[in-house]
């Protein structure tokens, strides 16, 4: 009988202990972030979509070798190589002379890709392309707020994207997502 009463008291006490925790946290400062007005500060290490890394001249470091497209588990990359430029008549003459001498003609095709098509709808952000790039021309952006109205908004041409970032051409809203702004 006494034991039962004591049990009831201890049972009730367990509820009071729980309420004390609630009271402590009721007065504690807010831990969440009011999102549209404030953004979280921990997205620096977040992996967003892919981007091409620019070299010193602003052109992409990429050498169009296609290792990334080969390594990609979900086939979301397509590298379009540049066509060799049409030789001028003088060059053609030089080429013919070189051929007559038995020299191999130098490949003057620029190595950077004409197009680097990236389908973000397929990408699972595993980083295999990045690890297999021989020149380190790929990187992840930290863009966590990418949004679009249609499927096509997530098909990027990364060469164009790099140009846009360098400010060479007009900004394209869908192609250059804004990164987190702390205050609005």
């Amino acid at each position, binding site marked *: 009988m006494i034991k039962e009463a004591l049990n009831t008291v201890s*049972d*009730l006490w*367990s*509820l009071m*202990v*729980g309420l*004390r*925790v*609630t009271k402590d*946290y009721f007065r504690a400062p807010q*831990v969440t972030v009011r999102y549209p007005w404030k953004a979280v500060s*921990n997205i620096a*290490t*977040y*992996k967003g979509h892919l981007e091409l890394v620019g070299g010193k001249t602003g052109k992409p470091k990429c050498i169009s070798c296609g290792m990334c497209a*080969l*390594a*990609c*588990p*979900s086939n979301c990359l397509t590298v379009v190589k540049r066509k060799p430029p049409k030789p001028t008549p003088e060059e053609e003459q030089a080429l013919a002379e070189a051929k007559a001498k038995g020299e191999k003609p130098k490949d003057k095709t620029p190595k950077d890709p004409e197009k680097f098509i990236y389908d973000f709808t397929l990408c*699972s*952000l*595993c*980083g*295999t392309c990045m*690890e*297999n790039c021989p020149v380190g021309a790929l990187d*992840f952006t930290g863009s966590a707020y990418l949004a679009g109205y249609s499927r096509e908004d997530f098909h990027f041409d990364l060469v164009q994207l790099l140009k846009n970032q360098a400010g060479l051409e007009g900004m394209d809203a869908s192609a250059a997502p804004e990164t987190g702004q702390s205050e609005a």
Partner: protein
Amino acid sequence: MTTYQNNDHLAGDFYTQNFAKTAGEGNLILNLGPQHPSTHGVLRVVVELDGEYIMRAEPVLGYLHRMHEKMAEVKTAAQFIPNMGRVDYGHALGWNWAFVGAAELVGGIEVPERAEYIRVITCELNRIASHLLWWGAYLLDLGAFTPIMYAFDDREKILDILQDPTGSRLTYSYYRIGGVAKDLSADCIRRIQEFIPWFRSRLPMYKDLVSDNIILRKRIEDIGVIEQEVCRRFGATGPVARGSGIKYDVRRAQPYSVYPKLDFEIPTSNLKCARGRYDVRMAEMEQSLRIIEQALEMMPEGEVLVKGAPKPSWKVPKGEGYFAVEGARGKIGAYVVSDGGKNIYRTKLRAPGYCNLSLFAEVSQGTILADAVAILGSLDLIIPEIDR
């Protein structure tokens, strides 16, 4: 004139019709799921009810089947790693490890020691995150809303830590064949060191807030008693087996990586009921903290990826191997058979949740419907992992 009326939708599908054949007179057949909040996804359980008592229950699987094993046959070993993060969103790194470990076993690749320690640290952090997710969601099932807020506050800190090396927050694809993708930064290590004492101070709070609470105790004590014999028969592992008093943990039973060097205990409970499984998971979080603490101290400097690590075009040498790791839900296994070709010939994934769920039919017999939901939650089911 009679008008044709299609009553097919009332007859039920194959499973219901098959199930109904042996149903008792006047009993009700009810579908729990596939879109029921307490099943955490698309698990469907067909139950036969007599009043509120469950006469029979039959889980129906396959609503979330994504043919991961088939996909392994059309990808090279390294290309398959991202899939493993998607099998189980709760403990993605455990699955990463199982497959990578099996590929390393067949390929005979040594992993640098630092990478082994990093794997232990990240895997254990992921285990804590997984248990916290279960804890919050389980109490949500039982009708307590606020605990998930406390759990996610802590879980968020782990996700922030894991985001640094892995770059993602849920579906990690971090381990590579022959090591890990990225070293832990000094900032990341500092944050883990800060997290350990902080989380230790939170565990008594969990105890005060929920574990000792009389309402929870009355709710989960003595329901869903799983005998050891049942566990063994169905192949249950992880906290489900340990909650019944079976001291089985892959980290000790089939030691892998650097776990033999680490000092930790395997918490078990002899209660055998839902409360036992609850206690085991709470104690496991504490043990995981101990493991992380020791691993951080013992972690040597050096490479994190072995020199000449396999490229995506790497062909797994001819042979076969099985590698098992201890996941948050039990024994995760990957069995890899290679014929030396471009892709792996066959990959079999052993999901702990599948075995843990299969004993539900037996355990739920004779309980009331409300208790069945509590039992289902105590098994810690993650449906994508069960269906694969």
